[in-house]
């Protein structure tokens, strides 16, 4: 029960943050990504504000052996910088620049029944499903990495 409660509180804070910051509005996001007259730099402050809080927080937690509610701290499934990472990040960036939604705002907007998100989120989940067809070792560098795809949920 406690983990569910903690998760829902964290979700609430995240959802409020996404909405208040303007990040949940694809037009604001595109106004930031498009370097043109009328460029809106505000979204830099979203990432900046988030990191300004989380960075010292994570550093402080380094000295702890266990999370407050027990269990263990999640470790990244991979620390390698490989083709799969770069290709994935590039495709994500292109999709983000086309539609103005990244996953968090897409879920929030879907939940609020925003028409464009009702189209975007199913497409996004389909795209995520297509990643399974991507051979772990093909076209992404010399070494295969099946563990990475298997543990996708642990880090991000």
């Amino acid at each position, binding site marked *: 029960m406690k*983990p*569910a409660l903690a*998760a829902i509180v*964290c979700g609430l*804070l*995240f*959802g*409020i943050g996404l*909405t208040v*910051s303007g990040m949940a*509005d694809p*037009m604001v996001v*595109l106004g930031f990504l498009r370097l043109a007259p009328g460029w809106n730099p505000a979204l830099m402050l*979203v990432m900046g*504000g988030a990191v300004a809080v*989380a960075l010292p*927080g*994570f550093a402080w*937690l380094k000295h702890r052996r266990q*999370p407050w*509610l027990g*269990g263990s701290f*999640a470790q990244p499934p991979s*620390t*390698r*910088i490989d083709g*799969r*990472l*770069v290709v*994935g*990040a590039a*495709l*994500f960036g*292109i*999709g*983000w*620049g*086309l*539609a*103005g*939604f*990244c*996953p968090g705002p897409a879920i*929030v*907007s879907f939940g*609020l029944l*925003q*028409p*464009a998100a*009702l*189209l975007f*989120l199913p*497409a996004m989940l*389909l*795209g*995520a499903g297509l*990643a399974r067809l991507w051979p772990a070792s093909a076209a992404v560098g010399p070494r295969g990495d099946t563990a990475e795809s298997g543990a*996708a949920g642990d*880090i*991000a």
Partner: protein
Amino acid sequence: MLAALAGGILIGLSAFLMYASLGKIAGISGITYAALDGGGRGWRLPFLLGLVGGAWLAVSAGARLPVAAMPSSSAGIALIVVGGLLVGLGTRLGNGCTSGHGVCGLSRLSPRSAVAVAVFMLAGVLTATLLRGLLVAGV
């Protein structure tokens, strides 16, 4: 500007509390895909529920969130569908999005996340600045 900063601080606080209390990374793409695969629903589904609930609360309290209308042109619709497919494929291949690699990865000083953020920011800016306008005028 202040709203963006305040929202960012709340997001950072959420990411910190997730890791501090549960030891979990607040990466939304990974949480979503793993929840759909059936893993760790005890905390993933409540987080996602809270995410939507938080947005609803913010809007109810007066935060501005304009309607994201369905595009009227077929080109506009294609842009959203193709964008969605690429975001899903890319975040799954690259194991993370703006929250997992961006907020959490950068805060953990992960070189892997720093590379991911540099690549998706560059790709996002180039696409929105150069490509999008060519594909759909006025969308």
